[in-house]
């Protein structure tokens, strides 16, 4: 096979792994709380700044900055739920969208105020690795492996714990949960913290690949939402698969056409899916 195509395919898979985390986080929160966090990519942006600030400004070791980023973002997820989402749980969906959309602008504004619009770089790059005929970025490979580990940990949590099983149950039937001894409010809090934590993990993986600036969320936020819709909103497995599909489309789109057009190809594919299967590619 053409080594350039092979490289494009490989990069697509690696990209899909990075898309997968925010998609899982958004789907988790939507499935449980039934509210879309429009500001999800901006939570990731905050996480990227947290890692950059701790590592570059404070001089912490990178690993420590990564590990600290997760609880910070989990706490941010909790705060978002308590301050913005919970008061609007009974409100019409449009109000919830407007509120979490408002948080998006608040976070962008706050980041601009605190960190200015400069692009901040972590300045770490792992050496490229040679796999057969193709070279692959060591950073991307490490991010991919970490994303898969994160997804596997989430799967195990949802599959094998009492709280995880209740999270999967509540996504289908909210009202009956108290009869099982489950306090839905508490499950909402847990899902919001885990959703925030996943944004934190995504931030760690992205900050080594992208420079941080207040509007960095725009470079992966829209595609994250598209993937969620393609996989079926709230459908974790569908979102996970759609993330890889989208990763492949973006990277091979660049191969067939040219790199500038790769996202155009992805958006065209998305429009096609919405026309043909509005309920999502993997809806049952």
């Amino acid at each position, binding site marked *: 096979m053409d080594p350039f195509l092979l490289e494009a395919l490989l990069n697509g898979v690696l990209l899909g792994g990075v898309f997968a985390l925010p998609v899982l986080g958004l789907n988790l929160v939507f499935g449980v709380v039934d509210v879309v966090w429009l500001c999800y990519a901006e939570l990731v942006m905050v996480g990227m700044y947290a890692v950059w600030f701790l590592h570059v400004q404070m001089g912490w070791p990178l690993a420590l900055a990564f590990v600290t980023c997760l609880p910070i973002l989990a706490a941010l997820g909790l705060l978002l739920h308590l301050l913005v989402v919970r008061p609007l749980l009974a409100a019409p969906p449009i109000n919830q969208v407007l509120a979490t959309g408002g948080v998006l602008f608040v976070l962008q504004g706050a980041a601009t105020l605190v960190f200015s619009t400069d692009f901040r770089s972590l300045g770490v790059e792992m050496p490229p690795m040679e796999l057969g005929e193709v070279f692959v970025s060591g950073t991307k490979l490490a991010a991919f492996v970490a994303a898969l580990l994160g997804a596997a940990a989430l799967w195990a949590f949802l599959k094998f714990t*009492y709280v995880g*099983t*209740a999270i*999967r*149950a509540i996504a*289908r*039937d909210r*009202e*009956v*949960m*108290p*009869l*099982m*001894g*489950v*306090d*839905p409010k508490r499950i909402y809090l847990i899902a919001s913290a885990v959703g925030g934590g996943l944004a934190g993990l995504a931030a760690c993986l992205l900050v080594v690949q992208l420079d941080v600036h207040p509007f960095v969320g725009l470079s992966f936020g829209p595609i994250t939402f598209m993937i969620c819709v393609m996989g079926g909103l709230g459908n974790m497995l569908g979102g996970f698969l759609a993330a890889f599909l989208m990763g492949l489309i973006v990277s091979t789109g660049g191969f067939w056409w040219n790199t500038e057009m790769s996202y155009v190809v992805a958006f065209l594919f998305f429009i096609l899916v919405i026309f043909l299967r509005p309920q999502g590619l993997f809806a049952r």
Partner: protein
Amino acid sequence: MSGAAGTLDLSGVHAGYGDFQALFGVGLRVEPGEAVGVVGPNGAGKTTLLRVISGLIRPRAGTLRFGGQDLAAMPAHELPGLGIAHVPENRRLFPHLTVEENLRVGAYAKAARAHFAERRDRVYAMFPRMKERRHQLAGTLSGGEQQMCAIGRALMSGPRILLLDEPSAGLAPLVVKAVFDLVARIRQEGLTVLIVEQNVAQVLRVVDRAYVLETGRVSAEGAAADLAADPAIRRSYLGGH
């Protein structure tokens, strides 16, 4: 003395949804070890009654006590911990979870988790069919099996009283008989049972006493055998022979 261990005691309970009032001063008492039925036509308030007891709806007036505890003062999700388990109307299983995962959700309460394996094995001993299908999605079970699974899920919290809402609804006649046999078996385990049913003939065979609920009020109560022999009840609910 009222409020003995495990006595369910309701008096003067008013409840409803929004502008609609479903219960008007309902009183009811279930002693430990008893099986009590609540029968009546569709829309009489039977389901509302169970939902008030398990805290899904708050009463507007009246008192609800279980083992002396004031139920109205507690959040619904704490009631399973008190020993109240409610098998809701239409079973409400989680269709996308396996049988065993449904049982695990039923054992969510902190006090129940330590007993998960032991109670699951007891449920499987009671319903061998559930053991065979433990890795199957609950949505793929037949109606009768779903009822077994729903009852099993309720038993996972280690209840003292089991509330059953229309366990025979939507099932084929042969399966209905099997479900009532099941209720009889649960009684043998020493559980207190409060069962709401439209299938009056069948339910009067498995309970000790019953209440007749009509348009939100208790219109008659008594021993199951007496009610089954009562001409007015026979006329209204038992086909009038």
